[in-house]
């Protein structure tokens, strides 16, 4: 089989894996070899579905001895199989990198023969890249669950980032759909990598030239919408993962139907993209906006509102918290205002040192008022001519979510959410303005 066909098969098989951020670290070849990776992610192109492409994302092989029901590469699936040789893949990576097509390599694999053999072939590829081509660009490698610890260690020294997929949000779902895998088998390498990173950090303090182990940290990924878990369960699981394994990112990937197994959504079900988007928004709020999972969802409202993003939902439920005075409140409070993001909040902080801000200046420094105006005052005053009622705020926020417009209108499976909100405005309001009941949080079971 020629390289052209191999690349088609092995990139096609890898594309459903959503995790694709580059860097988050700085490295440079210092004049020898090739490559650098700089710390603000560079997108080299955007695919037709609008995703940033920065890495060559391929599988070593799409042959697999396992039979996970949700996966295109499962043993029982009738698809063409291919495999790169380590030389081939290393050369391809370098030639793409030279032409500035990519920032680096994202390498994963089906299980060929056994986990150790698979892992060895990945190591060989990275070894050629790092030593023969002296490639200093970014490499993300998937740890193969079940591979020998020593091999995971070797892979970790060659890669910048590693990830182990947790695949499905609960143990039950995993044992149902991936009979060859167990939660423990998935978590073992995750724990090993975390320990490795920690030890490496103290090694680096002691010996400056200690080899770096997974310097850009580890991440994981889970499939959304293939199994019945709620957003609340998923969000709690991801918070727990961040805490326990010090992950850099948890990625969510909307399930793309690949099989007609009765345990899974039928092949004609659209992927729950809007739900995936809401989860990312919430994840963002937890990591950068000082929110906690239990502020966004609880047992009674275990799903996100499809019409309004999580931050606005929170704001509408806490109208008593607003309006806040932009000239006074601290950074964390500014971040709670719908329409004010990290960048705007920082600009407000630096601009208000000079003089107190009014609505015009806010506009000039690039703060978008369309949503924010309902939640702020400038020098104690509301924006002129604005009547703030929860209903007005609600209308402004709900009509206006670009994600909903681009994704929701295509008739995506909103039915999934029908249980919690119908398109009927009054019902939605009911669900939003319900006084927040004193939250009785029973710890959700995350499997830990």
């Amino acid at each position, binding site marked *: 089989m020629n*390289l*052209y066909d191999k*690349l*088609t098969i092995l*990139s*096609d098989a890898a*594309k*459903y894996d959503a995790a694709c951020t580059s860097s988050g670290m700085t490295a*440079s*070849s*210092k*004049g*020898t*070899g*090739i*490559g*650098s990776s*700089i710390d*603000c992610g*560079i*997108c*080299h*192109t*955007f*695919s*037709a*579905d*609008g*995703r*940033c*492409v*920065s890495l*060559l*994302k391929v599988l070593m092989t799409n042959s697999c001895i396992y039979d996970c029901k949700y996966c295109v590469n499962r043993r029982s699936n009738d698809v063409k199989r291919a495999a790169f040789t380590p030389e081939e893949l290393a050369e*391809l990576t370098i*030639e*793409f990198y*030279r*032409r*500035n*097509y990519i*920032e680096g390599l994202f390498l994963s694999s089906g299980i060929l023969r056994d986990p150790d053999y698979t892992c060895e072939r990945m190591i060989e590829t990275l070894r050629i890249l790092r030593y023969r081509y002296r490639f200093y660009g970014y490499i993300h490698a998937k740890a193969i669950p079940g591979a020998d610890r020593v091999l995971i260690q070797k892979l970790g020294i060659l890669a910048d980032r590693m990830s182990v997929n947790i695949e499905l949000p609960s143990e039950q779902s995993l044992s149902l759909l991936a009979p060859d895998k167990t939660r423990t088998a998935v978590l073992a390498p995750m724990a090993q990598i975390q320990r490795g990173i920690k030890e490496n950090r103290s090694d680096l303090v002691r010996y400056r030239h200690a080899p770096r182990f997974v310097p850009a940290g580890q991440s994981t990924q889970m499939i959304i919408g293939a199994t019945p878990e709620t957003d609340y369960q998923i969000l709690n699981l991801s918070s727990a993962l961040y805490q326990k394994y010090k992950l850099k990112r948890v990625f969510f990937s909307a399930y*793309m139907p690949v099989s007609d197994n009765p345990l899974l959504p039928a092949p004609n079900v*659209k*992927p729950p*993209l809007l739900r995936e988007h809401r989860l990312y928004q919430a994840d963002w709020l937890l990591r950068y906006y000082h929110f906690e999972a239990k502020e966004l969802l609880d047992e009674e409202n275990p799903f996100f509102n499809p019409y309004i993003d999580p931050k606005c939902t929170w704001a509408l439920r806490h109208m008593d918290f607003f309006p806040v005075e932009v000239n006074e409140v601290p950074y964390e409070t500014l971040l709670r205002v719908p329409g004010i993001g990290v960048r705007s909040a920082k600009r407000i902080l*630096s*601009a208000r*040192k*000079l003089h107190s801000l009014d609505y*015009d*200046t806010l506009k*000039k*420094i690039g703060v978008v008022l369309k949503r924010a105006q309902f939640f702020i005052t400038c020098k104690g005053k509301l924006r002129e001519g604005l009547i703030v009622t929860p209903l007005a705020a609600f209308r402004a926020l709900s009509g206006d979510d670009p994600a909903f417009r*681009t*994704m929701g209108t295509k008739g995506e499976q909103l039915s999934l959410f029908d249980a919690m909100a119908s398109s009927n405005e009054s019902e939605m309001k009911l669900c939003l303005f319900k006084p927040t009941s004193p939250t009785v949080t029973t710890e959700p079971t995350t499997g830990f």
Partner: protein
Amino acid sequence: MSFQTNLSYCYDGTYYGFLSGVFESFRAKELPTDFFSEDSRQFSLYPVKWIQTDRKKANRVDVAVRTKLGNYCYELIRLGFLSCLVNKERSMLCFLHRAFRDGPKAANQIADDHVYRLTKAVRHLSNEAHLLKGFIRFSDIDGSLCAVITPKNHVLPVIANHFLDRYPNENFLIYDQTHREAFIYENRTISFLKNAAYMLPQSDETEAFYRKLWQNYYDTIAIEGRYNPRCRMTHMPKRYWENMTELGEGFRKKEQQKLKGDGVFPALAE
């Protein structure tokens, strides 16, 4: 400002030329109504004062900006000069008059029209430079890497370092077709050409092969269930497409023509 004069400045279009004009404006205590470079061929209603580029004077201004006004103002001037802002010279000059009076904090006076325009222009430039770091496509031409870009701003000086870091052992060239400027790194020496002319030569077989591989990769990774051209367009405005291997019509058409050639002409030849 009280010393506004009915004069216009004309300079040679270089950074040092511009700084010499700044020097002149402070020396003569005058604020010209227009300030333009000779090749902009701008028409002025006012008498024109020709600014002779003087490296020494320019240097004095440069040092004063850096040391007295701080990094942020310095960036605003250095990058502002590379931006495509209309009448950037005058905006920068007015800003400098204000900044030398009020100190570094002048740059935060976003309510000031010149500061506002300048900040916006610099943001636009930085943004374009950042995008191009990813969107530039090199072709391997006899072992050297060559790229053509058509940016709105003079991004070459801003992005050059990034590529020096990326390809320390290659020879490469980036040609800015809009401004006819070229950045060349050859045998570990750097050169920067103005008024250059360059055209990407015909690609050889290997180059064509990798282009095809990349186009094919690009087509493969899009997930149909997620097709979202609007989102792609916001992140990657169409004006960058022409120079991109996977999207540019030129690149794509050549491929198609080749396919046509293979399919139709051999049949005729029989």
